[in-house]
């Protein structure tokens, strides 16, 4: 059994949770999860021996020393979870053996929901993804030349508003984006969208990308 297992549950829990992750978490002595969504959390509890809300990364690392500890976070662990990052870096520092299981990221989720492609001569040739707070911290981090996936597990409407208003200034007037929320999806001009918790946005590039051409 792993000392510590770090898992993502996908953007939509439980729909996008993989059975590989579910099995690994079911095998753990205790699973820590900071998932806010009550329905998703209740579902997860049905498969875990003991599901706990973590108070801190330190608490998880302390317990991981005994082995059989799982951490389950929204999305995929690298995309947005500060808790997963703190636990991972703490495990590295403490020499605790750990594994990270692949999970559906906001990009993977939004591709399917928007029927967008990456690669070939038919899909996008590049894409960028940002946690909404990252864009607020550094408005220049994103480029309008690539499609942009913007996401947050937890973000108040005011935070989203600020981020979208800042972004809207960098795109042509009226540039539209598609919002994927737990309640459904909508398409509207960037500044008029109203995302909240567990939302993902797909913002097309300011100009269409040129299709791939290569010689073989």
């Amino acid at each position: 059994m792993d000392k510590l297992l770090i898992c993502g549950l996908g953007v939509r829990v439980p729909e996008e949770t993989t059975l590989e992750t579910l099995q690994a978490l079911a095998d753990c002595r205790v699973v820590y999860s900071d998932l806010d969504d009550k329905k998703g959390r209740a579902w997860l509890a049905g498969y875990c021996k003991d599901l706990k809300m973590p108070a801190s990364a330190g608490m998880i690392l302390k317990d991981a020393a005994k082995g059989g500890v799982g951490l389950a976070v929204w999305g995929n662990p690298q995309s947005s979870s500060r808790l997963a990052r703190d636990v991972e870096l703490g495990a590295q520092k403490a020499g605790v053996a750990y594994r990270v299981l692949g999970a559906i990221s906001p990009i993977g989720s939004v591709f399917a929901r928007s029927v967008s492609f990456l690669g070939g001569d038919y899909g996008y040739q590049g894409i960028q993804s940002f946690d909404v707070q990252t864009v607020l911290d550094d408005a220049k981090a994103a480029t309008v030349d690539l499609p942009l996936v913007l996401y947050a597990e937890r973000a108040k409407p005011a935070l989203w508003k600020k981020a979208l208003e800042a972004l809207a200034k960098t795109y042509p007037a009226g540039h539209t984006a598609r919002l994927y929320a737990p309640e459904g999806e909508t398409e509207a001009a960037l500044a008029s969208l109203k995302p909240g918790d567990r939302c993902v946005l797909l913002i097309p590039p300011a100009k269409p990308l040129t299709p791939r051409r290569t010689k073989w």
Partner: protein
Amino acid sequence: MNEGRGYLICLIGLPPGGSAEWTASLAAAKGKKDAAALRAAGRALSLLGRGDEALAAFEKSLALDAVSHEGWAWRGEAHLLAGRGEEARRDLDKAVSLSKDWPWARLLRAVCLLTGGDTDAAQQELASLKVPEAVIVAALLEGQRGEAAKGADAATVELAKRPSGPLFAVRALLRLGLGDLPGCLADLNEAAALEPSAWILMQRADALNRSGFYREALKDSDAAAKILPESPEPHLQAANIYFDQAFYPEALEAMEQAHARRPDDASMLSRRARFHLLLGRFEESEAGLDRACALAPDSAQLRFERLNVIALRGRYAEVLKELKKGALQPPFDSYLTGYVLCRKGDRAGAVKHFLLAAERADGGFAERCRFYALVCRVLSKPEKKPASRPQFYLCGVGIHHPYQITVEILRALDACEVLYNNLGDPQVSEFLGLFRAEVRAVTRVDNEPAMGRVKRILAGLQRGKTSGFVTRIHPFIYRRIANDLVTQCDAKKISYQAFGAVSLTEVAWSLAAIEPEHGTERGPFASRVFDLVHLIKNPGQLEASQPTIVYAIANDEDRRTFSALVKSSYAPDRSVFFLAGSGDREQQVVSAKVKDIEEKLLSLDLGTVMYLPPRQ
């Protein structure tokens, strides 16, 4: 081809002309009844792939001369070629006891030990052997110990002194183990030029197929078949290559060729039955297994396979009755009971049987039983029924399939009446058999445009019946067939729903980030994902402060340009990571320093995905 056989043929090398030498040897022994002639006939038959006849000749030879070290050694070799390690070891021990100075019995015993995984004993055996062939086995030994580089270096030294086809082929195998596919192919080209034996050609076919050159691979399999006209092996290889490429009718034809060479071989019948099963040809699969069971009535494996096919044909009562009568031993009895109950729709009932099977099994089979128990557990919980279902579901099952399937895809598959798939993976077919749907493999047709497959799938859709298409990894990342499917669905106004899956992006990222060479820098919560060709045309879009994933499907020239771009953006001693071979193998990343990126990237296959950690 089993490992023992691979090592052995490496040694023997099946010399130029291949079967000609052994056929001539057989002809020379014909009609002779003395022990030496029978021994020679036995060895020739063994090396021509006629194992049963070889053993009969050795029996007669040893009955006449029971103290011939050669007789015991060559019979041991025949056992090794057939994958019977224990019998081989007994014969080779006897041969060594009869002649301690004769090197071949000891060399074969070293191979036997190596095949059984006892590398220390094999090394001890090799230590005092002075024949040049010992170097070949020693190099293989290093490879088996996970020291492929050491083995390749030893082979390089020996090749400078005595270049030979088998030794080039051995270095090729070691280079393959090191992930150096171009080096492996170069060595196999040298090997084939020196000694175009069937084994070397088949090794090259395998390497070519791995590199994506399946047509060239098939040419080598065909050439090997001409060298060994009586052997089923080259035809089996061709069948597998065709199958990998989803050319199912051609795969079956090649399988028939193999079967024709061993019509009464139960294991061959079983392999053909598995092909039939994957193609949804249940009746032929069952008939083949009926015959295999009649030929090998004691084989529990064959009984299991037969009952499994009967379960897939929906004759549940028949299977359960047989199981009640004790047709199968644990854990297979519980497993098949669970499988039947799951197909019948009793998911809650199936869980305990799968868990019982898992308790009594180990390794991969136990993992599969536990996974199926979880599948049944998830499906047994009530789902909020959707208002209406689409006509078509488009599903990806991740990289580690079917284990990376998501909950929503599981439920979608459960609602389908027909399930198409282009995976050609027996494990996925077995998994899809858990559902009530009819499973159909999507065949490729040579020179048919990609859209052809899609049109055939959609032509099979029936109004009011939900169908699904299951593909590997993420359906919308480098998957033309998925693009063509949604394009056609839109054009024909067919309602559809698509699901996301774990892709190489997430796997490369998560595997690389935990490597010690990665360091602690994680960058912002952001990422950029690129097609390599796009990135070299838009170098300004590479933002080194962010985690970056690059799909390296590109020619060598573009890969060189990309390497130069990375070198200009990252420090030379920074590590970058490669997820090589985007197929179905166990995934792992390899790292290289930025300064060495070009050499590494050029050595990896087309499906390579790169992860560039954020720059500090």
